[in-house]
């Protein structure tokens, strides 16, 4: 499994498409049979408490793409804080098991784990 991370509008989708994946391979914010899950953060924000249960299915994907949502001021709303933290923790677990982790900054991919 490859994990692609980066802030909002950092170039994650462009990078994903450059790897040869097409729209037919990409599931946007839903967990289905497709090779790529794009927007893991949407799934977690919809149900932060269920985040952990997603892990086995995510590990079966070829690629998981998640926005980095943990930076900036800690939100005042409890639910928002929980969702941010659940996203971060899930990404730590995914990264630990991923063969490769790529982080996008201003459209530039940096391999931070693997070849």
């Amino acid at each position, binding site marked *: 499994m490859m*994990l692609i*991370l980066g*802030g909002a509008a950092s170039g994650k989708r462009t990078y994903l498409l450059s790897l040869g994946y097409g729209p037919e391979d990409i599931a946007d914010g839903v967990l289905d049979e497709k090779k790529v899950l794009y927007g893991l953060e949407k799934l977690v924000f919809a149900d932060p408490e269920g985040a952990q249960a997603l892990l086995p299915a995510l590990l079966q994907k070829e690629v998981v793409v998640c926005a*980095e*949502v*943990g*930076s*900036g*001021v*800690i939100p005042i709303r*409890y639910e928002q*804080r929980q969702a*941010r*933290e*659940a*996203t*971060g*923790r899930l*990404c*730590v677990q*995914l*990264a*630990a098991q991923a063969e490769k*982790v790529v*982080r996008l900054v201003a459209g530039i991919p*940096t391999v*931070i*784990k693997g070849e």
Partner: protein
Amino acid sequence: MMLILLTGGSACGKSTYGENLAAQGPKPLYYIAAMQPFDDECLKKIARHRALRKDKGFETVERYTAVDILQLPKTGGTALLECLCNLTANEMYIQPETPVDPVEKVVAGVENLRRQTDTLIVVTNDVGSDDEDYSEETRAYIRYLGEINARVADMADRVYELVAGIPICLKGETV
């Protein structure tokens, strides 16, 4: 006298990485906890952090303010200061109605701990990568913590940003 600064967003793996790094350092190991148990959520966080570092051999020193005059029980070991974001808020709101500039106090706190330890690991948070849609007071906090982060990074031998538990070396050598 090694100073290591760890930064990153919420739940990026800073604490776990910091604890594991500290556990490899010279003994004794001190965990300097700056988070005040205000409410249930803080208590849960504190309990989670305690569970994470259980069996790693830390002696916990709860210190919410005035780290600049903190005297560790013994000098020469390793200390993990967690974290500058809490310490900064605590110093800023030491009198809640009249916030003060906490920068010198917090930086002096890091300098004080550094003098007493062989290895000092400091955890902070990236609160500036966000929009500007906040109150004047919150923006002041962002500026103060940004200045503190820059000053501590300048003093530090190594600075790492944690991304999903992976350390990215921003200063010094990669371990």
